[in-house]
C-alpha cells in the first residue's frame, strides 16, 4: 500500500466525493469529517514512512499515460512537498469539521473532497502535464465554492479568480510545451517528467523566455503584484472554508511551483530575474501591507496580509540559497497555518454578526475573551513573533536573501513593521476599547466546534515555532539537493557565484556541528 500511497491520497477523497452523492443530507457532515480524518491519517502515515535523510523523491509512482507524447503519471514527494500535502489534508479535515450550517452542505462537502484531490495532486505530481491537470482542476471546485456560497459579489469574484488564474496558467502551459520540445530536441523523445527536465541544461536566452512564461502562471497564482487583485475579491466574497483553503493551500501552489520548476529548470534565468522579482516581492510586502492597513473589512485585512506574506516567501525563494529556500518553504507552511486560522477566526465572528466590517465591532475582548486570545495568538504569529511558526520562515527567508542584497533585504524587512501596523490596528479596532454596539454585548464565545478547528492550529503554530526541526530537516535536505542541482546546472559566472555549492558547504556544516 505504501507503494501507492500517493495515488491513494489523491484519489481517495475524489472517490469518497463520488460516493458522497449517495449519502443522506443529514449524515453528510459526519461522512465528510470521517473522510477528512482518514485522509489526514494517511498523510500522517506518509510522514511517518517518509525517510527524512533522503533528499530526493520518495514513494515514486510511474504509470504511462500518453507515452508517445511523453506524458506519464508520475508522483513522488520530497521534503518540500510533503508538508504542504499534510497541510492540505489537515485543512480539509478541519474545514469540514468546522463547517457551519449552510445551504447545500452536501454539495459543499463533495466539492471540498474534490478540491482536496486536486490539491494533493498538484503537490505530488512529478510530470508537468499531470501537475498542470491538477493545477487547473483545482480552480473548478474553488470557483463553485466562491460562486455558490460567497457574498453579494460572489459571481464576479469567482469568475475573476477563475479566469485570471486560468489565463496565467495557459501561458505557463505554453512554457511547459516548449520545455518538452527542447527536451525532445535534445534527446529525441518527448517527456514532461520534471525529473527528466532537471537534466536539461538550456542556454540562457531560452531560460529567460521560459522563466517568464512560467512566471506569469505562478505569479498570478501566488499572487504577486500587480497580478494580485483577484485575491481580495476572492477572499472577500468566499465563504470561510473557501478562504481558509485558498489562503492555506491554493496560494502555496504558486510558490511551490517556483521551487519545483522555475529555480531548478532555469537557474541562470532565476539569477537574472532575481532582482526584478525581489523588487516585486518588496512591493508586495510594503504596498499590500499598506493597502491592508486601509481596509475596513477585517477579512480583507487578512487577505491583503496574505499577499504581503507571500512576498516574503517569494523573496526567500529567490534567495537561491539553502537558508532562504528552506525558509520560504517553511513559511509556506507557517503562512498556511496562520492565515488559515485567521480566516477561520474571521469566520467565527462573521457567523455571529454576519458582517466583517471592523467598525461594527470593538471591545470584543470583553465579551469573547477566548476568541480574543486565540485571535491574538494568531495575530502575533502572523506578525512574526519568535517561537511561533511564521517567524522561523520569515527569519530564514530574509536571512537567506540578505546574502544576495543588503538594501533589498532592508526594504523587505519593513515587512515586520508594516505587518505589525495593520495587524495591531485591526486587532485594536476589533477587540479593544469599550463595547460600543449593542448587538455585540451578548455574543457567545467560541464554541466547541470552532475550538476543534482552532486549537490544533494554535498548537501547531507554537510547536513548530519552538521546535521546527521535524519539518525543517526534511525540507532542508531536499532544498539542499535543489540548490546543488541549480549550482551544477548554472552556466553563467554570475549564477555560479550566486547559487552556493552545497556539497562544499556540507563539510563545514559538520564541522560546525562538531564545534558544538
Amino acid at each position: 500500500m505504501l507503494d501507492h500511497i500517493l495515488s491513494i491520497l489523491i484519489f481517495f477523497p475524489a472517490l469518497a466525493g463520488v460516493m458522497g452523492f449517495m449519502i443522506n443530507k443529514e449524515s453528510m457532515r459526519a461522512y465528510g469529517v470521517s473522510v477528512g480524518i482518514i485522509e489526514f491519517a494517511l498523510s500522517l502515515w506518509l510522514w511517518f514512512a517518509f525517510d527524512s535523510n533522503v533528499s530526493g523523491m520518495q514513494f515514486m509512482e510511474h504509470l504511462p499515460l500518453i507515452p508517445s507524447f511523453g506524458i506519464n503519471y508520475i508522483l513522488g514527494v520530497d521534503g518540500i512537498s510533503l508538508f504542504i500535502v499534510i497541510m492540505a489534508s489537515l485543512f480539509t479535515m478541519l474545514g469540514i469539521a468546522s463547517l457551519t450550517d449552510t445551504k447545500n452542505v452536501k454539495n459543499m462537502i463533495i466539492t471540498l473532497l474534490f478540491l482536496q484531490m486536486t490539491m494533493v495532486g498538484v503537490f505530488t505530481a512529478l510530470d508537468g502535464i499531470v501537475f498542470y491537470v491538477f493545477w487547473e482542476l483545482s480552480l473548478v471546485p474553488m470557483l463553485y465554492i466562491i460562486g455558490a456560497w460567497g457574498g453579494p459579489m460572489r459571481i464576479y469574484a469567482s469568475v475573476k479568480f477563475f479566469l485570471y488564474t486560468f489565463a496565467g496558467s495557459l501561458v505557463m502551459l505554453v512554457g511547459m510545451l516548449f520545455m518538452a520540445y527542447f527536451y525532445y530536441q535534445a534527446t529525441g523523445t518527448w517527456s514532461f517528467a520534471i525529473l527528466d527536465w532537471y537534466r536539461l541544461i538550456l542556454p540562457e536566452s531560452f531560460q529567460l523566455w521560459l522563466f517568464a512564461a512560467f512566471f506569469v502562471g505562478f505569479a498570478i497564482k501566488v499572487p504577486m503584484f500587480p497580478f494580485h487583485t483577484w485575491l481580495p475579491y476572492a477572499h472577500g466574497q468566499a465563504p470561510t472554508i473557501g478562504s481558509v483553503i485558498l489562503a492555506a493551500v491554493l496560494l502555496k501552489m504558486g510558490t511551490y511551483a517556483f521551487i519545483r520548476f522555475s529555480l531548478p529548470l532555469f537557474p541562470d534565468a532565476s539569477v537574472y530575474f532575481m532582482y526584478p522579482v525581489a523588487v516585486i516581492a518588496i512591493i508586495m510586502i510594503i504596498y499590500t501591507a499598506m493597502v491592508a492597513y486601509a481596509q475596513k473589512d477585517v477579512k480583507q485585512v487578512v487577505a491583503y496580509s496574505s499577499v504581503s506574506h507571500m512576498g516574503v516567501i517569494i523573496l526567500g525563494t529567490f534567495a537561491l540559497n539553502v537558508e532562504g529556500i528552506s525558509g520560504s518553504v517553511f513559511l509556506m507552511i507557517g503562512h498556511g497555518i496562520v492565515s488559515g486560522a485567521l480566516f477561520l477566526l474571521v469566520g467565527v465572528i462573521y457567523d455571529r454578526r454576519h458582517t466583517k466590517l471592523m467598525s461594527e465591532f470593538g471591545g470584543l475582548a470583553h465579551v469573547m475573551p477566548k476568541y480574543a486570545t486565540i485571535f491574538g495568538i494568531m495575530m502575533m504569529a502572523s506578525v512574526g513573533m519568535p517561537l511561533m511558526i511564521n517567524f522561523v520562515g520569515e527569519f530564514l527567508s530574509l536571512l537567506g536573501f540578505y546574502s544576495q542584497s543588503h538594501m533589498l533585504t532592508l526594504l523587505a524587512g519593513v515587512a515586520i513593521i508594516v505587518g505589525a501596523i495593520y495587524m495591531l490596528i485591526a486587532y485594536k479596532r476589533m477587540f479593544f476599547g469599550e463595547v460600543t454596539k449593542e448587538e455585540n454585548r451578548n455574543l457567545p464565545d467560541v464554541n466547541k466546534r470552532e475550538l476543534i478547528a482552532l486549537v490544533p492550529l494554535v498548537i501547531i503554530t507554537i510547536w513548530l515555532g519552538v521546535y521546527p526541526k521535524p519539518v525543517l530537516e526534511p525540507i532542508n535536505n531536499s532544498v539542499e539537493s535543489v540548490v546543488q542541482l541549480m549550482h551544477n546546472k548554472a552556466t553563467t559566472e554570475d549564477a555560479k557565484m550566486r547559487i552556493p555549492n552545497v556539497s562544499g558547504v556540507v563539510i563545514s556544516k559538520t564541522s560546525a556541528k562538531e564545534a558544538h
Partner: protein
Amino acid sequence: MEKYLYIALFAPLVSSMFSALFTNGPKKQFVGIIASLLIFTAFVSSSILLTHILGGGEVVHVEMMTWMHTGNLYIPFGFVVDQISVTMMMVVTLVSTIVHVYSIGYMDHDKGFNRFFAWLSAFVFSMMILVMSDNFAGLFIGWEGVGLCSWGLIGFWFHKDIATWAANEAFIMNRIADLGMLIGIFLVYWNTGSLQYDIAFPAFANLDTSTLTMIGIFLFIGAMGKSAQFPLHTWLADAMEGPTPVSALIHAATMVTAGVYLVIRSNELYSLIPHVGLFIASLGAFVALFAASMALVNRDMKRVIAYSTLSQLGYMFAAAGLGAYWVALFHLMAHAFFKALLFLGAGNVMHAMHDELDPFKMGGLKKVMKGTWIMMTIASLALAGIFPFAGFFSKDTILEAAFAEHHMVIYGVLVFTAGLTAFYSFRLVALIFHGEERYKIFGIHPHEAYKFMLIAMSPLLILAMIAGVFQEPFFNMVEEILGAMEYHIHSHVTVWIMLVGTQVFVGLAILFAYKKYSSWSTVPDGSSPMENSFIYKLLYNQYYIPFAYEEYVVKPYNEISAMMWEVDKKVVDASVDGIANIFYTTGEKTRDMQSGNLSTMLKWMVAGTVGLLSLAVVFGLAARYSDEILAILSGLGV
C-alpha cells in the same frame, strides 16, 4: 549548575502558564501568590548561580536543543550564565519578584488579576531568555518576547483607548528598531557564519572595519528602540498608561535596559569600532539631557519618572559607548533598584489618589503616606546621586569615565543633567508629599498602601541605599569579560573637586526644587507667564516630537495607505478588468456585423474575398517588383 539555570529560566514560564490557565476565570488570590513564589524560585536559582560565578566558578553554558538548522545556519536553544548574564538575571528576578508581590496588592481590585500575572511572568521569562541566550537569535526571541509582553501589559486595560494606542505605539516603534537588529543579525551571520556569541565575537577580529561598523550600527539601532533612545523615545512616556508595576518592572528596571545589555554583551564588537562607540556615547549624553529637560515641566508623575528613566538610559549608553561597559552595567543594576522603587512608590501614590497623576493636584501626602514618602525620597536621592546612595557610586563612575576619556562635552552634559535630575526628582517629591493638601479640592481621601506592599518594596529600598558597596566585588567579577578598566584620574585633588563639586551642584538643585515647590498651593491652570513661555511649551510638548510624528508620519501613512488602496482598486484592478472589458466591449460593439440580414452576410463574404484578393495583389506586386522595392527602400535608408 545547569539545573539552576533551567529553574531560573523556566520557573517564570511555568508561572505564566499557570496563571494563564485562570485567565478567563474570576480573580484568584493564589494565582498571584504562586506566581510570586515561582519567580522567587527563579530569583533563588539566580542567586545560587551568582554565588557560583562570584566564587570563580566556570561559566555555565548549556545547549538545550536545536531550534533552526538549515543550510549553514545552526541555531540552538543555548543558554549561558556568565558574569554579565548573571548580573542581569539577578536584577531581573529580584525586581520582578518584588513587583509580583507588590502587584498582588496593587492589582487587588482588578478583574484582570490572573491575566496580569500571566503576562507579567511571561515577561520575566522573555527577559530571562534575552539575557541568558548564548546567541543572537535567542536574544532576538527574548527581544521580541519582551516587546510582546510589553504590548500586552501596556494595553492591559484594553478598554482604555489610550492604553491600547500606547501599546501599539510601543510595539510598532520597537519593531522599527527590531528591523535594524535583524539586519545586524543577518550581517553577523553572513560575515561570521554563526550567530553564537562564542563563535561570532572572535571572528569579528578578522573582519574589516566597515563591516563591523555596519554590524555595530544596526545592532545599536535595535538597542535604540528597546531602550527608547532618540528618536524612538516617544513610546516610553506613552507606555506609562500601563499599570504601574509594569512601569516599574518593564519600563524602568529591565526591558528598557535590554539595549544597554546588548551593547555590553557585544562589547567585543564595540571595542573594535570606537567611532561607533563615541556616537553611542554622544547620543546617550544627548538623550540624558534631552529627557531630563522634558521631565522638568511635565505634570504627569509617571511620565516624569519615565523621562528620568530615559535620561538614566542615556547615562548608561554614554558609559557603554565610552567603553566603560562594567560601569554601564553597574549603573543599570543600581538604576533598576532605585527606579523600580520610585515607580512602585508612585504606584502607591496613584492608588491613594485614585489614579490621579498630576502632582499639582496632590501635596502634603507625607502625613498619610509616611512609608511611601520615605521610600520615594530615598529613591530620589539615589537617583540624584547623593552620597552614599546607590546612584552616587554608579553615576559618579560614569562621570569619572567620561572625564578620564577626555570627552569633556559629554562630561559637561552629564554633570549638568545630574543637576536637572536632582531638580525634577525633588520637584516631584516636594509637590507630592509637601505643601498644601491640594487633593482635598478634588475630594480624594488618600490612604497608605497595604503593608505587605511596603514590605515587598523594602528590599529595593535597602538596595537603593547600599548598592554602592557592591561596586568593588562587582568590578572584580565582571572585569574578566568586560575589561579591567578602572578609571583613575591622576590627581586626587581633581577627583575630590569633581566629587564634591558634583555633590554640591546636585544638592543645590535639590534645595532649589524644595524651595520652589514645597509650599506650592495652587493647581496651575495654564495662565501663568512661565507656562506661556516658549521654552515651557516646547518642553511640555516634548519638543513637539510626538506631534511631528503624528503629523508627518502617522497621518501621511494613513493617507498613503488609503491612496494605495484606491490605486489598487482603480489602477491595478481596473486595468485587469479593463483588459477583460476590451474583449467584451469589442464583442458587444462588433456583434452588429451579424445583422441577421442575408444580404449583409453575402456582402461580408464578397468583401472577405476581395480583401484576400487585394492582399494577393499586394503580395504579387511585391514579389514581382521585389528588386525595385528593395532598391527604393535602401534609397530611403531603411
